[in-house]
């Protein structure tokens, strides 16, 4: 095999792909245990109703029926409710006395076969007494109907969160020469991984729980199970197999998991549960932020103040997967790439009769909402002041010499060069020529739009002084063991769902040790073997676990230095690590490779500790702040409202790049999701609380046919505090692209006087906006 030493920055092919490309991945539904039962769930058709009774007699007549479980049985075992991740609320496992949203889990059924379980679920007869529905946060905030009488305070208001200086911001807005205001809604979305969630729970002969589950955070699950079930962690093994996408959907602990474990415990047989598509689509969501944004500026376009008031729809439970001290996640990144002297963000969250969640969707804790709001508002400001959108941004960028930059909303940005990245993008897209073409087309009445998004995101949660989930600090562990041959095994507490850790983790370690990345096995997802870590979501793997790996490798290098000194019969202080080997300073040609040191570690370690392995925990000193400039070019058909994305360019700056091909793949995937959010996707509800988007017929996932051609590129501004200077990229395209798409469409429609349209920009919405604008112009 050709060696690929010195692997950092190389487009090494993904080591995991042979098994995926041949259909040999090991997903949850590929796993079956002897004697296993199948579980199915009964869901409520009512969004809000009292439960007057559950009759399981007909269900138990199904051949193969084993048991029906409701909240009554779960409450008897004290597992009727779960704590939510940040500990500020609790969540029903099965509906307890009432249902709070449509498709809520009401009962679990257990049967000998999958088919029998589904038949049973159909036949469980639940007697509902419908209650008034609050499907809109602006309605539920009136407290006309209290949705959660189980809570201490009789209100649908969950929490208020705010950051920044209100009085100064109000004064600055008051004094501004120009103020723009816009109500911007980021619709309810769903991460929609192709593989839904599922699990198999088994208590083995020793009474130990073996829990196979689709989890982005296996260690968090194990600790959560300890907290909920009281089973000590040595009696729990959580195994997360190959995952068919996650995007945040596989972070929460779902009721189905608890019911499967409860069933396995009581029925003394393994229990398997695989979500249906509709179950997956109706159990959690992302976003649903209603934002009122105001920017103050001079008439020349220099920003003076930013104020955002947000109403957050959290659904029936406050189950947002945000860190404990950050109930609105990292929404404070809403000042974006711009140097606002004053800023204030205020947010109120409400219960509604909708599914709970507020998980990410390829978004680092509410960063997408924030980034979309500021990038839209900057375009509106540019439009009102009649300044070019790129020039307005250029006037207001945080400058390279300002880093580390203290933002007015309490982040310290690590590094960035926003103008450079934007210039690369404008040059490559041919911005000046596009403006010229647009002017010509506008003269002919054609609708062409150019949309910019020069976003900054915040990732890598995170530093233990600020971040925890269920009280567990958000650092990460890494273990490296080097075998005598110079090959090795790498284990982390993260869990790839397609990010390519089996390749990139090997590249990081190989680079630090001068070994071959092809010869490293990367293991994740088994809590029996992986070091503790908080998992993979919110773009935290490379910033946190990636840092842990680099430092662990360096720790091994220091141990190797002692062995190298012994083998070379010199003092370790005479050795220099250079060109991927230990060289004796002053003696050219006298050196030893890491492979040779590895062999010596097991054959001739001298007085040193034999072997070559280590475990290291990394607590990052700060978050990382990737940024980018995205440009969309669209043509809108005036007659039909059809938008064609003619070009889309993404220039990302994610710091040091480990594997450019994987970065490109991540960006392609994220842009496709961003495109879907901008033009297609919404979890819609009607006034009665009916969820109208429960499958892929109603909630659209673009294929390669719909997706535009993606052009990508990068600039590199390393993070000064990350061990290898890396930031992250998995979420940047989803964070940055919706605004670019919408800005482009609004830019196309701006000659008609259209100022804003909320996503998704379906043909119908764009067509209606054009017709309304034309009718107003005719009046």
């Amino acid at each position, binding site marked *: 095999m050709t060696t690929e030493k010195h692997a950092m920055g190389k487009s090494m092919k993904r080591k995991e792909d042979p098994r995926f490309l041949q259909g040999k991945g090991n997903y949850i539904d590929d796993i079956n245990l002897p004697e296993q039962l199948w579980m199915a769930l009964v869901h409520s058709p009512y969004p809000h109703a009292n439960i007057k009774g559950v009759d399981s007699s007909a269900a138990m007549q199904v051949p193969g029926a084993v048991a029906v479980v409701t909240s009554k049985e779960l409450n008897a075992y004290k597992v009727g409710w779960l704590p939510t991740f940040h500990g500020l609320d609790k969540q029903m496992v099965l509906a307890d006395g009432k249902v709070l949203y*449509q498709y809520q889990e009401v009962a679990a059924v257990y049967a000998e076969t999958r088919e029998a379980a589904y038949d049973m679920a159909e036949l469980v007869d639940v007697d509902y007494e*419908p209650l008034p529905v609050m499907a809109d946060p602006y309605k539920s905030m009136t407290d006309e109907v209290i949705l959660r009488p189980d809570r201490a305070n009789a209100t649908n208001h969950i929490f208020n969160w705010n950051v920044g200086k209100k009085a100064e911001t109000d004064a600055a807005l008051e004094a501004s020469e120009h103020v723009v205001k816009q109500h911007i809604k980021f619709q309810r979305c769903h991460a929609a991984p192709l593989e839904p969630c599922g699990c198999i729970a088994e208590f083995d002969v020793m009474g130990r729980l073996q829990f196979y589950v689709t989890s982005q955070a296996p260690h968090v699950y194990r600790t959560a199970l300890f907290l909920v079930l009281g089973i000590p962690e040595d009696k729990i093994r959580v195994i997360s197999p190959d995952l068919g996408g996650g995007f945040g959907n596989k972070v929460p602990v779902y009721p189905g998991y608890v019911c499967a474990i409860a069933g396995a415990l009581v029925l003394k047989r393994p229990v398997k549960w695989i979500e249906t598509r509709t179950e997956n689509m109706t159990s959690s969501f992302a976003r649903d932020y209603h934002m009122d944004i105001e920017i103050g500026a001079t008439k020349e376009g220099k920003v003076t103040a930013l104020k955002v008031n947000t109403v957050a729809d959290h659904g029936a439970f406050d189950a947002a997967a945000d860190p404990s001290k950050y109930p609105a996640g990292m929404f404070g990144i809403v000042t974006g790439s711009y140097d606002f002297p004053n800023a204030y963000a205020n947010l109120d969250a409400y219960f509604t009769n909708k599914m709970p969640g507020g998980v990410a969707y390829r978004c680092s804790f509410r960063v997408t909402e924030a980034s979309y709001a500021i990038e839209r508002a900057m375009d509106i400001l540019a439009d009102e002041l009649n300044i070019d959108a790129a020039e307005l941004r250029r006037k207001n960028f945080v400058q390279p010499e300002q880093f580390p930059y203290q933002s007015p909303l309490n982040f310290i940005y690590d590094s960035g060069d926003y103008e450079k990245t934007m210039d690369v993008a404008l040059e490559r897209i041919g911005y000046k020529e596009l403006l010229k073409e647009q002017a010509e087309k506008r003269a002919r009445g054609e609708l062409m739009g150019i949309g910019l998004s020069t976003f900054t995101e915040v990732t890598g949660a995170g530093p233990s002084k600020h971040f925890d989930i269920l009280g567990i600090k958000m650092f990460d562990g890494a273990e490296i063991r080097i075998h005598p041959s110079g090959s090795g095994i790498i284990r982390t507490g993260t869990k790839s769902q397609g990010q390519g850790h089996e390749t990139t983790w090997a590249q990081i370690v190989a680079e630090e040790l001068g070994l071959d990345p092809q010869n490293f096995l990367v293991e994740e997802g088994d809590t029996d073997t992986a070091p503790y870590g908080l998992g993979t979501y919110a773009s935290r793997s490379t910033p946190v676990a990636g840092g842990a790996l680099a430092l662990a490798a360096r720790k091994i290098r220091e141990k190797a230095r002692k062995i190298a000194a012994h083998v070379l019969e010199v003092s370790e202080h005479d050795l220099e690590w250079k060109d991927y080997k230990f060289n004796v300073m002053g003696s050219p040609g006298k050196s030893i490779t890491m492979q040779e040191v590895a062999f010596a570690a097991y054959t001739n370690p001298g007085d040193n500790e034999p072997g070559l392995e280590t475990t290291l925990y990394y607590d990052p000193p700060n978050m990382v702040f990737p940024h980018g400039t995205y440009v969309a070019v669209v043509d809108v058909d005036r007659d039909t409202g059809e938008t064609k994305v003619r070009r889309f360019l993404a220039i990302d700056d994610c710091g040091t790049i480990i594997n450019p091909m994987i970065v490109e793949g991540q960006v392609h995937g994220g842009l496709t999701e961003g495109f879907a959010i901008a033009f297609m996707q919404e979890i819609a509800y009607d006034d009665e609380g009916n969820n109208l988007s*429960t499958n892929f017929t*109603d909630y659209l996932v673009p294929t390669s046919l719909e997706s535009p051609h993606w052009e990508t590129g990068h600039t590199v501004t390393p993070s000064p505090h990350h061990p290898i200077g890396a930031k992250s990229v998995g979420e940047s395209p989803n964070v940055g692209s919706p605004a670019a798409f919408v800005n482009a469409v609004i830019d196309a429609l701006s000659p008609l006087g259209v100022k804003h349209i909320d996503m998704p920009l379906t043909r119908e919405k764009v067509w209606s906006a054009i017709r309304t604008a034309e009718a107003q112009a005719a009046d």
Partner: protein
Amino acid sequence: MKLEYNGTEQVPLGKDAVWAFINDPQKVASCLPDVKTVTVHDDKNFDAVVSIGLGPVRGSFKFKITLEPQEGGNRMNVKISGGGFGSVVDLLAGADIKDNGDNTTTLDWSGAATMRGPIATVGGRVLDAQAQKLIAGTFANVKTRMAELG
């Protein structure tokens, strides 16, 4: 999703005969379109299994039906609730019964249906046609059966 309907049927029977008919669960149930089975519990309550075909929602829906005759014999309310495949329909229908004095009776009916679950995602026009079929069909059948009796 909420849908509302109303209509008028002229029945060639006297008011007393009409009143007797619509107070008989067995007879009312036989007027439901595409009815498969009827189980009468008492003189006001019965269950009916009805075939439904609505886009992807196809199969049998089980409805609980309660007759609520109003005092004076001038109005009958009917409460229908039930469903299948995770969908539910709650229907409140009622008819004012007017004696025309010529041995015919006018049924002035209205109904409001609330759809929940997958059925609500099918789309207003398809649903509307089906609900129309169910409600208008029922009252049309009432008229036909009564005419047969007459």
